[in-house]
């Protein structure tokens, strides 16, 4: 452990614990997932940064959206995101979740991921290198330190608006609202 950070550990132990145990849900969308196996295995070894893939969203707190999101995948993404326990952090990976990327005029790909679920940070590029994931993770540490990675709180406060957008994209959702709908209107 870095001795310089001892003060931080005593001041905000939960925050530090969240920072260094980012369990990423192993959810593959689009082509970006091809960068993730080298990141989590021996070559780049994300465990140095405390990032470990997890099989189930119930044990995860980091959600990497790796690549374009089709309308059908959006449904799975929302369900996965809502299952994750708080605090949870979302990172859009690659240019497609940001604004559609090369699928900007596709009939079946959603363009702006942050209109459907809250996103804490973006990694630009097509594809981003594995190093970019680590840059993003260190940025995420800074955001967690400063309480700026608050996507899950924004999801609570703006849930009605998010849910409305989700329903506009997907039609009638078959699961009940996660939070009371009257908040945030």
């Amino acid at each position, binding site marked *: 452990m870095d001795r310089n950070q001892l003060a931080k550990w005593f001041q905000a132990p939960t925050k530090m614990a969240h920072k260094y145990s980012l369990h990423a849900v192993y959810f593959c969308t689009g082509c970006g997932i091809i960068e993730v196996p080298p990141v989590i295995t021996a070559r780049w070894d994300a465990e140095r940064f405390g990032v470990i893939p997890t099989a189930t969203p119930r044990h995860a707190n980091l959600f990497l959206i790796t690549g374009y999101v089709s309308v059908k995948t959006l449904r799975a993404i929302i369900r996965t995101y809502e299952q994750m326990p708080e605090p949870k952090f979302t990172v859009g990976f690659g240019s497609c979740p940001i604004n559609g990327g090369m699928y900007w*005029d596709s*009939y*079946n790909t959603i363009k*702006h991921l942050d*209109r459907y679920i*809250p996103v804490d940070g973006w990694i630009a590029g097509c594809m981003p290198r594995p190093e970019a994931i680590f840059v993003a993770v260190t940025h995420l540490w800074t955001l967690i330190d400063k309480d700026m990675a608050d996507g899950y709180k924004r999801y609570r406060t703006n849930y009605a*608006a*998010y849910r409305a957008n989700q329903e506009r*994209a997907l*039609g009638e959702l078959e699961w009940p609202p996660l939070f009371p709908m009257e908040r945030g209107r």
Partner: protein
Amino acid sequence: MNGPLRTKLDSIFRDVETELADDDRLTVCVPKDSVVPVLSFLRGEGCDYLQLVSCVDWTERGELELVYVLSSYTGEANPPGAARANVLVKTGLPRTHPSLPTSIGVFPSAEPYERELHELFGVRFEGHPRLTPLFLEREYEVPPFRKDFDTRQYVEDHFGSIPPVEEGS
């Protein structure tokens, strides 16, 4: 080689047009009601593998063209040493309410392809057991793989109209 196969096809089926390319690729153009008999015949002749069913939208001709790509696993259609040639079966359909009998009875592997074409091109396959959506989540007025589907307009109408939730997003 596909030369003898071509001769046989020409002698058995009256309404087919065959064409043999230089690389031994046999193209068979059939009317839509003869698709299943021709496929069945070709399967009997050793073309036992349906590679894919595809569709081409010819707007200027005003028709959809279905393409069945057949080849051989066992090699009965092609003697040893010959190139493994493909047989293409093509049929034209009108662009409004296109429909033709399903070929699942001959090639069971046609099932997902026919579902896909039904969804993306709006081709109706009579006798298909489940023409349910395969990839898409929603209904499209024009099937999205047709040439007259305006993707940009569609994106503007459906995705561009969804407002940002928060400031700056």
